[in-house]
């Protein structure tokens, strides 16, 4: 009798265990950062409020570093602008400059939550649909690519970080123009792999790699990192280890990239896929 009772208890425990684990899986699949940001709106509001407060505190202690970074970026941009102004004054008429529409618009945003220690990391920004953020917009900083917008709430948006082992971007070696697929390695926040580089292509350690502009999500030519080592893969291609410029553990200000032509681009890609 006693034995039967203990078997019964063990079975009930197992059943409850399976039920609770199932509930956990259900929560993850429905509420996981990669899946559906819009669910659990109430909890998200609470989380966002707490994260905002936490981020403000963290930001306060990193103000000095942030100011230095902004100052450096300001100097770089001023110099670049000066160069272009001189060039434009010599070679381009005012009417051409005035008629030019930039391909990308930039929406500044602040990171309120950022994870770096998981296989699929995500970032929450303080801007949402009210500010013009839409899914599939790129997120960058002057130091590189941060990720792309996955889903958007009214006041916040969820970004799939570049530090997600499934996230890839097309990058090119600045010097040679050879392109490959850049993917986070998954072990160090500052390192990624540029793969599928043809064996005949020329590159050297220290060469800079930049965004290709093929995707229409990220502008072309953003510096991403430098080559630190290379490894031959089956004698047919190289895998290059890239030391990233972006410091993901210290993200604060980012720019969301709005490409008005992105929708047209995606339509073309879909048409191309349907042809195959």
């Amino acid at each position: 009798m006693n034995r039967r009772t203990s078997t019964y208890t063990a079975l009930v425990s197992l059943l409850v265990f399976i039920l609770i684990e199932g509930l956990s899986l259900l929560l993850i699949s429905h509420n996981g950062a990669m899946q559906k940001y819009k669910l659990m709106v109430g909890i998200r509001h609470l989380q966002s409020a707490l994260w905002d407060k936490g981020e403000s505190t963290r930001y306060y202690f990193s103000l000095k570093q942030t100011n230095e970074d902004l100052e450096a970026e300001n100097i770089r941009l001023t110099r670049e602008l000066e160069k272009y102004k001189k060039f434009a004054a010599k070679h381009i008429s005012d009417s051409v400059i005035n008629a030019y529409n930039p391909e990308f618009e930039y929406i500044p945003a602040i990171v309120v939550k950022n994870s770096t220690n998981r296989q699929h990391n995500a970032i929450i920004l303080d801007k949402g649909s009210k500010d013009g953020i839409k899914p599939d917009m790129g997120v960058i900083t002057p130091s590189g690519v941060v990720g792309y917008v996955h889903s958007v709430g009214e006041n916040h948006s969820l970004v799939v970080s570049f530090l997600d082992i499934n996230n890839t971007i097309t990058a090119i070696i600045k010097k040679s123009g050879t392109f490959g697929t850049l993917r986070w390695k998954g072990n160090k926040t500052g390192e990624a792999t540029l793969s599928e580089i043809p064996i005949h292509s020329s590159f050297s350690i220290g060469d800079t790699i930049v965004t290709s502009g093929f995707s229409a999500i990220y502008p072309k030519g953003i510096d991403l990192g430098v080559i630190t080592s290379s490894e031959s893969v089956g004698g047919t291609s190289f895998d290059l280890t890239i030391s990233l410029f972006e410091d993901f553990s210290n993200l604060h200000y980012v720019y969301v990239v709005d490409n008005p032509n992105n929708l047209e681009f995606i339509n073309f890609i879909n048409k191309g896929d349907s042809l195959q």
Partner: protein
Amino acid sequence: MNIDFKKILFALLVIVVQCVLDNYVDMSIYVRIVLVPYLILILPYRYRTISTMILAFLIGLSVDIFTTGVLGMNAGALVAVAFIRQKMLHAIMDERNMERHDSPDLKVMGVGKGLFYIGVPYLLFFIVYTLLDNFSLRPVAITLPKILLGTVISGGISLLLFKNYKKI
């Protein structure tokens, strides 16, 4: 102050420390310090598996809400710890000792059994957590050091807390 109230406060403190660790302490991609399984392991013997699992789920969920934002990750991993707790206690303790004492005690268990009692649930916690995060243990070169380092460091801290728990 009532001793149970003191223990509830201690449990809340551990949850808050866990949230602070997860949100603001970024040691390395390989190291995550986890303290919440310790709360499950020190529960009194009278907590049976089902009630322990429900409590574990609620503790894990509260950590999920205030840290990763992905509900179910810590909750699922912690429920696995709760599921094996009674089985482990029965495997390493005799019934008389369990009747004589209110809750697991390192002095009664001994260091060897204490290590086993802390180490195995922590290992299980990190394996389940990794599986829930990635739905796979690959790439092993990354997940294995993560699991082992997490178990050793978090388990070590918990062992120290476990040693001094009766003083609380």
